[in-house]
């Protein structure tokens, strides 16, 4: 049993939520700065030194703005939606490791006492007391459903979006919410499928155990680069970031599902996406990039306090780096069209994730070296590209038979004639 102290847990909750919200605030600043730098501009630099207090000003603005609740909304659900969105996003942080962790000891098999060795019960007790002395940088340590809990809450996040879009009684909001829910539901499948292999190899859903496995065997990115790619792409889609930000297409949907929100409720809606991004980045770091380990360098530090701080910094550093990478990607590639988005999920990512999963099963069953998986991943990636290049048609020259030709075709021009 992991130790539970309500006071320490409350302190950790305050620290973690405060830290994550602070990171989210500075992610908004980072987003604006990065977009500015990419366009050869300076970015916000008026509030505080170099614009460092800009997030505070933005937050204050959300507090002080007039709160408009339109007459035509379904008030009850309208008020519920931001709470659901933010609540589910923050609850997912409960099992996310953000620093040094120790996995709970495995059960000790009960055997007849061997002379010269401790009996199983004593061994078990000793392991447990040893485990209790270690502080885990997780809100809920030793939770065996682990990552499954995050996926469950990720599915719940759709409700915030759907409620917001539905209760607003506004066409644009509803369209945005429908798009968003279709997208989130579709991308949940590759999101889960791509990491199934990780769980199969480690044999546990517990993030602490996954980190511990990677400490001894090497980071999962070495064995499953394709799964990392699929997982990252899916998390971008799940947190509605570019290139998958169709729920908030300003061009055609005004603001998307949060069109009718104002003041702090809008702030919460926007915050939710950043919390999702932070959670997703933590999960990528934990599942694929070795958690708090930094090529074994962190184990050279003798002092336990300093070591814990370094491990905390390593893991949060990985998280921040992944967030920044997401922002770089955001300002680099254009948006997908909706059919491209769905095709990518259903025709590319889900089959690839499934094949990857099957490969993991083979490796596990026949006891191959894990490095085989790397080769299989690379093969799958290039194979999918080759298959796509060979079979895919274009809009003007599709491979499949077109049932309805576009209007106004002159005689002699056959759409997809060749």
């Amino acid at each position: 049993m992991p130790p539970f102290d309500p006071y320490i847990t409350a302190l950790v909750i305050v620290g973690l939520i405060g830290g994550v919200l602070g990171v989210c605030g500075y992610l908004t600043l980072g987003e604006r700065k990065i977009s500015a730098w990419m366009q050869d501009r300076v970015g916000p630099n008026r509030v505080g030194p170099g614009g460092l207090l800009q997030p505070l000003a933005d937050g204050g603005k959300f507090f002080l703005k007039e709160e408009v609740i339109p007459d035509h909304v379904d008030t009850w659900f309208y008020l519920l939606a931001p709470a659901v969105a933010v609540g589910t996003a923050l609850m997912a942080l409960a099992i996310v490791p953000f620093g040094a962790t120790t996995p709970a000891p495995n059960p000790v098999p009960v055997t007849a006492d061997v002379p010269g060795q401790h009996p199983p019960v004593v061994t078990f007790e000793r392991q447990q007391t040893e485990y209790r002395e270690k502080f885990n940088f997780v809100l809920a340590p030793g939770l065996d459903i682990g990552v499954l809990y995050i996926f469950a809450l990720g599915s719940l996040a759709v409700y915030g979006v759907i409620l917001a879009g539905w209760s607003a009684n506004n066409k644009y909001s509803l369209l945005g919410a429908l798009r968003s829910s279709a997208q989130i539901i579709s991308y949940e499948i590759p999101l889960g499928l791509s990491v199934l292999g990780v769980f199969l190899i480690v044999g546990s859903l517990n993030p602490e155990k996954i980190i511990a496995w990677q400490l001894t065997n090497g980071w999962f990115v070495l064995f499953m680069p394709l799964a990392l790619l699929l997982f990252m792409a899916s998390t971008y889609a799940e947190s509605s970031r570019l290139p998958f930000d169709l729920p908030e297409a300003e061009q055609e949907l005004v603001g998307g599902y949060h069109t009718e929100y104002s003041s702090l409720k809008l702030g919460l809606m926007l915050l939710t996406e950043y919390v999702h991004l932070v959670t997703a980045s933590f999960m990528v770091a934990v599942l694929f990039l070795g958690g708090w380990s930094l090529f074994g360098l962190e184990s050279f530090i003798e002092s336990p306090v300093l070591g814990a701080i370094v491990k905390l910094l390593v893991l949060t550093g990985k998280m921040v780096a992944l967030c920044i990478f997401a922002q770089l990607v955001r300002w680099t590639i254009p948006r997908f069209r909706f059919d491209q988005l769905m095709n990518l999920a259903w025709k590319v990512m889900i089959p690839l994730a499934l094949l990857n999963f099957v490969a993991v099963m083979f490796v596990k069953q026949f006891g191959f070296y894990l490095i085989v998986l790397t080769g299989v991943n690379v093969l799958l990636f290039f194979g999918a590209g080759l298959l796509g290049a060979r079979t895919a048609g274009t809009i003007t020259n599709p491979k499949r038979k077109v049932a309805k030709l576009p209007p106004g075709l002159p005689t002699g021009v056959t759409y997809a004639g060749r």
Partner: protein
Amino acid sequence: MPIAEADVTWVEETKLDLWEQLYIPALIDGLKTTIGHMFQRKVTEQYPEQEPKMPANYRGVHRLNRDEAGRVRCVACYMCATACPAHCIDIVAAPAPLEWQKDGREKYPETFVIDELRCIYCGMCEEACPVDAIELTTLYDLTGLSREQMIFDKEKLLSVFDTTTKAGTDPVRTRGGRLGPASEAPK
């Protein structure tokens, strides 16, 4: 008119090859461009601290030029007021003082008022002026607390001339101090 069939060119979308189909190389290509831009020199002008240098032909606030003797150069011919598409110039002409008449000046503007809020800064008054008395300066940050403040009279317009010539931002662009043909006394 519908487009003739012969004029329509049908273009086929190019097919993606393997490299493009993989998407990741294209993404890395794009990241190279954007990250490269992140470290380039910024083009932002920090406006209130760092004031822009306007080109000499910028059309900002008007001024009324003075001649060598420091008198208003305007001869109250009403050409600018006539040319003005926004009707923002109001002139009341009066016979020039006696010592001015020795230089061939018959009239001078008793009042010369420009409504800077009404003005569209087209510069047609400057083009119309036969004696180069009215000019648009490079002053761009024109503000006021009320509508009345934005109605510039003769003194204000002359003071704009004084400040801009003293600051050296707007040298006088007149033709050597000679008056134009419209200022010549009728024979």
